[in-house]
């Protein structure tokens, strides 16, 4: 271990009440680790009534020897691996956490976060009661007062502006039921200005992947990596972001001798375990992947039969790839030919190989190009639709997949139905509401031109969460809605996970109403300069309620409630009901959802989305089946996830979607998407026929390929009532099904009859097509390289320029070339990128409030290469300013390490509570500040949005670094 003495006067984090100088540092983990406890448990008492005191004290008591112990089965609320947890409860207090050895995903294992979830039962730093900012001071108020005042203001804004001036920012931390209800609430309110963190984590994946082969999700599973003969990880650091996934990676690495290839600008902890490591310049994924494909095509290593049968447009990719000669790849990415060749050869020789990516690929102005290039790579090698292959996209939050599926997005209703009139009619039908009433809730104006006239607001995508700042600050007549945003809900969101800190602060100050609904105050409570008009409403964690959650592999899991809501917090769905009551649409919203003591019955919500989510097969996972799976964790195979025997016999764990038809149909779920070696009834599938049947005279349907047992031995389009009739299968529907299915298709037939009959004949309800390597509806049909807006290689801009500016993109003017027009690389010579630390998650409000985690990572830092540090006279542990080209700057500690290349700096993004050197700690409500605070790196991150989804660019900007 490397011991270095540091300057004893260099520490200055004041987040702690009693700081001692540590004196020694060893590595990042020990980086200025302080042995003294700061605030610790002392903060328990502040700001609580005696009743709450008792509860909180009870919660921190250890197990009581004589008390009866009950256990609850729940799922970790941190990342998307979905680790099982056994919680032990005594007298209503969460006293023990046991490993769930029989859980099929994690076999009892946890990372630092998962092993520390019991702290949620203490919740010392939680937001404890509804609070309102009055003349700059926090004032405790009642729930009733808070909800009354908020709804009154909302109604006023609705009247004066339009429903679109209220923004509903939802959460990947909601259960599926809460996410669905949240989306429904925005619809009942009458706006598409609803979105959540998926926009800023994997929106480019969802768009890229869904537009390639049909569905926007991880195709295989963490467990299926056991079958991989090679593992390629690009722009992902699972040892920190998804640690338990490495259990599965190591199994393949050891038992299959599967080589692990890591491609990342930073020598991550994952790279430390790699057989091959390629260090690319941030933002050059397309050139690198094309560089690998160059060798694959050059050597004829592609899977020609697979491409002929199941891929459209590979020749166009080939033509683009041909431009990426080894010299050019090295010139642009910085990776030598030998390494690129070796990686390509390894992937070609070890099939099936899996391809894993995360935020390093997605969070770019060309994020959608990156994700589609990854897909093209796997298609070329024939690695799709096969166990051990696939694009294993690791989602971030525990339920970001579920919240995406349930449509907490500005561009779709639940189930990716979109916002067309047909989509609204489908959901109005599921809700049993009059479509005209639903439509009447929206602003009746129209602001987006289309071919023939204007698109109504109801059918126009809303403002994405990445751009809410502009929705507030932009001139109203530049926004494609009646007025700018005037009120915002931050319902489970960390603002410090978003870029452009200075402008965000300005936007927060300009809003008339801010409502934070969260178990913690979050950075939203402190980063503004407001005096009034801000409410903090304490909601619960998922351990204080029950419901379903969707892991990255599309499995739905059921969570038991562990403890009663702490302090005065209420569950999200109770708050939604109470708000809907005040906003006057609770009768419509809860028409078929029973409400008991103001709490909507969770299972009724599950059943309601089961009745509507035909597109992606969220229909077969009834609460009863989900609970049965939860009680039978141990019966599911560790690799295939299929249950052998027992009451779930034949099912795949969590019925990974699509789980077709009604629950009665008993579909087992689809473990690996597009796997034609299984029948559709057994979880097999071809690629989806989503993009028509032909283009320019060339078929888009599969040729000479179909899923096992298909009675149609060729490609076929998606199923409709008419197609069933043409095939002579209409009579297979029962009389009732025929009545429901008439004029419908597999997505809109709510009887499930069309799906049932298609599957009975071995066919996929969505058709059998080719994947498309060319997405003609996107700005770059074949993925091409474009330099970042703030590029370190201005010399490459002329050859690889960004896009033209757009006047209205997701309702807002959006800049590309006007930013790239200026060369910032001289004044800001270092590339700035960001990523995760294992102890924290997201904006970190929750994890930095957990003392078991906070102790391990007490300081915000920037990783600097020794060469850059020496050039700037910076020593380990120095306070430095990191300043971005838009003027945002952060004051952080320097950590000097070879982990980053010269010319690249890395910052974690979980910190908050400081703003450009200013300590905001005193602005938190008493007793609710996290244990550790620090600068939010995104304060210095800059403008830049993906050309399809408006994903923010957080993986590549520029900065300059100077000693503070």
């Amino acid at each position, binding site marked *: 271990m490397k011991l270095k003495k540091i300057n004893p006067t260099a520490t200055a984090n004041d987040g702690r009440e009693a700081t001692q100088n540590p004196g020694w540092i060893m590595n990042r983990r020990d980086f200025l680790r302080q042995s003294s406890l700061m605030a610790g448990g002392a903060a328990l008492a502040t700001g609580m009534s005696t009743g709450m005191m008792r509860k909180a004290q009870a919660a921190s008591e250890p197990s009581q020897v004589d008390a009866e112990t009950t256990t609850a089965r729940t799922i970790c609320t941190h990342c998307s691996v979905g680790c099982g947890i056994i919680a032990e409860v005594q007298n209503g207090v969460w006293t023990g956490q046991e490993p769930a050895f029989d859980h099929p995903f994690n076999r009892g*294992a*946890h990372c630092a976060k*998962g092993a520390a979830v019991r702290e949620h039962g203490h919740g010392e730093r939680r937001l404890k009661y509804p609070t309102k900012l009055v003349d700059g001071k926090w004032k405790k108020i009642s729930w009733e007062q808070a909800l009354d005042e908020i709804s009154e203001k909302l109604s006023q804004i609705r009247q004066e502006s339009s429903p679109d001036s209220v923004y509903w920012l939802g959460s990947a931390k909601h259960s599926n039921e809460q996410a669905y209800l949240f989306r429904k609430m925005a619809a009942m309110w009458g706006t598409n200005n609803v979105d959540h963190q998926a926009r800023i984590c994997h929106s480019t994946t969802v768009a890229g992947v869904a537009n390639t082969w049909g569905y926007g999700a991880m195709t295989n599973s963490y467990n299926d990596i056991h079958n991989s003969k090679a593992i390629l990880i690009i722009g992902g650091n699972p040892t920190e972001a998804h640690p338990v996934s490495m259990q599965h990676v190591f199994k393949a690495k050891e038992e299959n001798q599967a080589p692990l290839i890591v491609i990342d600008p930073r020598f991550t902890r994952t790279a430390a375990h790699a057989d091959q490591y390629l260090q690319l310049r941030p933002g050059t994924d397309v050139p690198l992947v094309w560089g690998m494909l160059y060798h694959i095509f050059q050597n004829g290593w592609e899977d020609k039969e697979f491409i002929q049968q199941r891929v459209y447009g590979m020749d166009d990719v080939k033509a683009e790839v041909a431009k990426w000669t080894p010299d050019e790849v090295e010139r642009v990415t910085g990776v030598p030919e030998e390494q690129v060749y070796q990686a390509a050869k390894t992937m070609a020789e070890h099939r099936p190989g899996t391809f894993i990516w995360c935020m390093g690929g997605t969070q770019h102005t060309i994020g959608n190009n990156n994700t589609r290039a990854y897909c093209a790579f796997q298609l070329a090698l024939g690695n799709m639709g096969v166990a051990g292959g696939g694009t294993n996209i690791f989602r971030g939050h525990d339920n970001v997949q579920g919240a995406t599926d349930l449509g907490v997005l500005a561009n779709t209703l639940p189930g990716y139905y979109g916002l067309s009139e047909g989509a609204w009619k489908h959901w109005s039908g599921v809700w049993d509401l009059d479509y005209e009433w639903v439509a009447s809730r929206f602003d009746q104006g129209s602001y987006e031109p289309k071919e023939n006239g204007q698109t109504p607001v109801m059918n126009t995508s809303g403002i994405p969460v990445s751009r809410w700042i502009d929705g507030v600050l932009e001139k109203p007549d530049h926004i494609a809605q009646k007025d700018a945003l005037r009120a915002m809900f931050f319902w489970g969101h960390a603002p410090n996970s978003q870029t452009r800190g200075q402008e965000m602060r300005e936007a927060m100050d300009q809003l008339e109403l801010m409502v934070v609904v969260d178990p913690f105050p979050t950075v939203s409570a402190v980063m503004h300069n407001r005096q009034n008009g801000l409410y903090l409403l304490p909601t619960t964690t998922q351990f204080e309620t029950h419901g379903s959650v969707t892991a990255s592999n599309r499995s739905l899991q059921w969570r038991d409630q562990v403890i009663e809501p702490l302090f005065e917090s209420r569950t999200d769905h109770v708050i939604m009901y109470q708000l809907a009551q005040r906003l006057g649409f609770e009768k419509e919203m809860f028409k078929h959802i029973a409400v008991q003591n103001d709490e909507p019955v969770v299972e009724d919500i599950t059943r309601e989305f089961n009745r509507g989510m035909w597109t992606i097969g969220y229909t077969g996972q009834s609460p009863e089946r989900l609970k049965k799976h939860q009680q039978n964790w141990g019966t599911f195979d560790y690799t295939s996830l299929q249950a052998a025997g027992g009451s779930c016999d034949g099912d795949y764990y969590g019925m990974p979607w699509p789980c077709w038809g009604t629950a009665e149909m008993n579909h087992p779920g689809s473990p690996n998407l597009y796997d034609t070696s299984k029948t559709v009834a057994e979880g097999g599938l071809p690629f989806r026929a989503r993009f028509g049947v032909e283009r320019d005279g060339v078929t888009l349907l599969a040729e000479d390929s179909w899923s096992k047992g298909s009675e149609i031995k060729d490609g076929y389009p998606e199923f409709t009532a008419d197609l069933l009739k043409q095939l002579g299968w209409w009579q297979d529907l029962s009389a009732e099904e025929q009545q429901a299915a008439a004029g419908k298709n597999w997505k809109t037939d709510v009887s499930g009859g069309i799906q049932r009959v298609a599957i009975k004949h071995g066919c996929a309800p969505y058709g059998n097509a080719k994947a498309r390597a060319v997405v003609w509806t996107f700005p770059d049909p074949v993925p091409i390289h474009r330099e970042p807006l703030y590029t370190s290689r201005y010399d490459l801009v002329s050859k690889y320029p960004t896009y033209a500016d757009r006047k209205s993109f997701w309702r807002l003017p959006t800049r590309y070339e006007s930013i790239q027009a200026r060369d910032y690389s001289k004044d800001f010579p270092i590339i700035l990128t960001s990523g995760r630390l294992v102890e924290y998650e997201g904006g970190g409000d929750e994890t930095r409030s957990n003392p078991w985690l906070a*102790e391990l990572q007490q300081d915000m830092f920037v990783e600097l290469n020794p060469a850059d540090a020496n050039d700037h006279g910076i020593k380990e542990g120095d306070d430095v300013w990191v300043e971005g080209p838009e003027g945002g700057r952060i004051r952080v500690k320097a950590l000097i390490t070879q982990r980053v290349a010269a010319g690249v700096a890395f910052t974690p993004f979980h910190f908050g509570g400081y703003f450009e050197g200013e300590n905001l700690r005193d602005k938190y409500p008493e007793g609710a500040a996290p244990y550790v605070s620090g600068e939010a790196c995104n304060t210095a991150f800059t403008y830049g949005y993906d050309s399809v989804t408006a994903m923010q660019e957080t993986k590549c900007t520029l900065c300059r670094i100077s000693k503070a």
Partner: protein
Amino acid sequence: MGKMKFYCDEDRCIECNGCVTACKNENEVPWGVNRRRVVTINDGEPGERSLSVACMHCTDAPCQAVCPVDCFTTTPDGIVLHNKDTCIGCGYCFYACPFGAPQFPGEGQFGARGKMDKCTYCAGGPEEEDMSEAEFEKYGRNRIAEGKLPLCAEMCSTKALLAGDADVIADIYRKRVINKGGEGFGLDSLKEGLSATAPAEPAQASVQHWTPSSSAS
């Protein structure tokens, strides 16, 4: 009689700190006391490797040999425990320990765990009634008395950290070596036979519940 040991597989340890927070969680270890920690060598450079380290429960424990008040005892299962009432907090064990295991809680309310604190192998303390409040207060949980293994190993994210009877750990590790192809050991030919009998082994690493009776053989 079994010998309880820890083993950390450096090819699998990813420094996720699950073991560290599992320990905090199970034993309510206060801020500033690190019964277990993960050390990393070559941090950020090729050859970076991490290991999770706590008290190794030495068979011939140096701490025990040097303790001036003789507060250490070794249980029949080979777990090294110390009596916090006898301990004088001199720190001599700190000199003797090759692993930096002994911890010395700071002053104030978090010094409540006594003069010296260290990993108990989740076996509570030496002198109190098993699983009593008093034992928990001073030493933390007694999982061994419940027939369980230390939570750090049971929760290890990649099954790098193993705990249990040394013979059992050795068996698990041997299988892993063969699975890896036995590079350099000429064991490649054994691999096929082994994976046929034990295909899903790795997750079983610390899964096997140790019970007092099963270790008594």
